């Protein structure tokens, strides 16, 4: 798989041309180049506009609450002024909801995706491997609103709720699993998120495992290792950075997911440690209240959007740094 393009051979401009060349044709090349370059810079322009426009829109709220006051404030009370900021806006409950649901999703999806990827690459019967991985990838095609509908109307009452009640009975003394079980909440939202990010994470982990060189694995088998030992001691350690990248990418997806979370998280403006508790994520709070928000509240929701953007950016960049550093210190990657 060529990851870096070999430099496309440059057509020497001064070369004498045959029939394909005309006076107009000489200009066509630079024009074409500038057109595609212009299209390319569109991405940069859009991103710049995104940052500028949303920050400008959200500025009054940041100005009133202070940036960190906004991020860590715990009170969210909308005002209804049409011209100024009169309410109190602290986004911490929503930031917490976002982080906790994404964390639940990663905790569940990461081991599962590794296991599935390993199964697909090392254990599945050859004839089955392709249809199986195809099936898992199809899950990624399911629109998020269908996940929400199914999660709320079928999965929650029939599977998750009985499971939660059992879990609460077993681990209710532990603060994370403190009752009461209310149905909707952080945990069901996190579990459905896990299902949603599973395909993308599996795909990446699988890709990483597939490209691991075979010689070492063969050598390990030759030394008498079982398949399990080859996987845990040869394949997975050298795939570590790829797995981290998969986790980060899944995390990024989970942070920004809106509709399914909205339907399952329970939408309260408070926050608590228990995973059975209800709350809101940043994205779900925006979607829930935007429709009927007055201009002042929309400004504040815009500020949540900016914060969400920042969080996802930090995660993305962090992922890159981790992957890069692991790449550097590959020698002792057998962590």
């Amino acid at each position, binding site marked *: 798989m060529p990851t870096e393009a070999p430099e496309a051979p440059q057509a020497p401009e001064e070369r004498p041309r045959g029939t394909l060349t005309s006076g107009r044709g000489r200009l066509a090349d630079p024009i074409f180049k500038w057109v595609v370059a212009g299209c390319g810079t569109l991405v940069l322009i859009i991103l710049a506009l995104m940052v500028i426009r949303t920050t400008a829109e959200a500025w009054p709220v940041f100005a009133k609450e202070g940036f960190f006051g906004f991020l860590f404030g715990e009170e969210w009370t909308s005002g209804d002024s049409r011209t100024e900021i009169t309410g109190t806006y602290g986004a911490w409950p929503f930031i917490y909801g976002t982080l906790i649901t994404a964390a639940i999703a990663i905790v569940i999806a990461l081991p599962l995706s590794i296991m599935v990827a390993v199964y697909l690459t090392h254990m599945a019967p050859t004839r089955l491997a392709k249809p199986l991985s195809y099936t898992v990838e199809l899950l990624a095609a399911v629109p998020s609103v269908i996940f929400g509908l199914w999660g709320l109307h079928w999965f929650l009452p029939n599977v998750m709720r009985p499971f939660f009640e059992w879990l609460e009975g077993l681990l209710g003394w532990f603060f994370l699993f403190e009752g009461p079980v209310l149905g909707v909440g952080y945990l069901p939202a996190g579990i459905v998120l896990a299902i949603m990010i599973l395909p993308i994470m599996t795909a990446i982990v699988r890709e990483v495992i597939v490209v691991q060189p075979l010689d070492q694995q063969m050598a390990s088998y030759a030394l008498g290792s079982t398949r399990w030992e080859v996987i845990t001691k040869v394949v997975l350690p050298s795939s570590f950075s790829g797995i981290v990248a998969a986790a980060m990418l899944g995390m990024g997806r989970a942070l920004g997911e809106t509709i399914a979370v909205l339907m399952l998280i*329970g939408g309260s403006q408070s926050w608590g440690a228990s995973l059975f508790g209800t709350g809101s994520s940043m994205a779900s709070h925006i979607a829930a209240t935007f429709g009927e928000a*007055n201009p002042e509240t929309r400004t504040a929701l815009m500020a949540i959007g900016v914060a969400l953007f920042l969080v996802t950016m930090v995660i993305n960049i962090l992922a890159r740094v981790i992957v890069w550093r692991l790449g550097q210190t590959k020698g002792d990657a057998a962590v």
Partner: protein
Amino acid sequence: MRNGRSKLATLAAIPLLAAACSSGGEDTENANTSGDALSGSLTGAGASFPDPLFQDWIYTYTNDVQPDTSINYQSVGSGAGIEQFMEETVDFGSSEEYLDDEALQEAADNRGCEALQFPVTFGSVVIAMNNPELDGLALDAETIAGIYSRDITTFDDPAIAELNPEMDLPSDEIVPVHRSDSSGTTAVFTHYLAHEVESWDEEYGEGKELDWPSGLVGGQQNDGVSQGITQNPGGLGYVNQSFAQESELSVAHVVNSDGEPIEPTTESTIAASEEAEVPENFQFHIDDIGGSGYPIAGTNWIFTYTCGYDQETTDTLVDYWTWALTDESAQEIAGELGYAPLGDELTERVIAELERTNSENGDGSEDGEDEDSEEDSAEDGDQ
């Protein structure tokens, strides 16, 4: 239906006549052709609380009454409804709050003519519960506030037991469910609590969304609340009455200001609406409801302007709302959905106000306009 239509035809003719008189010869043709079949298209925006009713009204009207018209109502919430009305991006606005004089003045300054407002319907917010044995449980404002602030956590709490001496109350934990989206239903419900219970007003206040105490379940829209109620044995939540009628949930009877526990029905909502003193300018609240009225009720206002519409829009606007307010099938729809129509006397006054829509347009004389409206109201009353 037949009756409704003939009545409708009479009503519809009046404003057309008025328009024809006021704006000279040109419009006569127009008026004549559209007398039987209107073909205007309207856009409106505003409150979500009456949305189920508005959607049903619009559907019936545009399908069965005036098939050539189209009406698009967006339930964007009261705030946005007012905003869009002020910015003149819609033909009519709607809100659960009336416009105060200042807002009316602002609207008038923008448009260059007077803005009108009138109530069109009343609706109740119902306390629904999961446990069928609790149907008819009596609650008052204090206990509801207690439940939602988590001071009362079980059904056999002394405060509830006192209101229900004859009921065998379970010791189930109450799981209060609220709307997690911003909604008019929440506004009506919390307005009631804030008005009745001082401590609630101080701590939580009122609004379309609230900083609820922790330990409550939030549901996305009516369906989310219903899921929250039905999936918890002790589930209790507030919903539009239309929903409570549809579902099998048990409902609480709420104690009104005369100390009577009242079952939420269309009748008790009508009774509540009759409790309200409606002044000339239609600026009123329905609070402190007594008698046989159900106390958690809200009103919905419609806003229009007295100028700036074209003739077709005016005709459709007036005809549609006149139909909605007076036609029997429209009233039936309201009843089925748990919304209360206005009383007879109030309907007359509202129609009179409605027909001032676009009356200041062009070179029309206001006097003639007013006379027409009065005639119309009289006719309406006769029928």
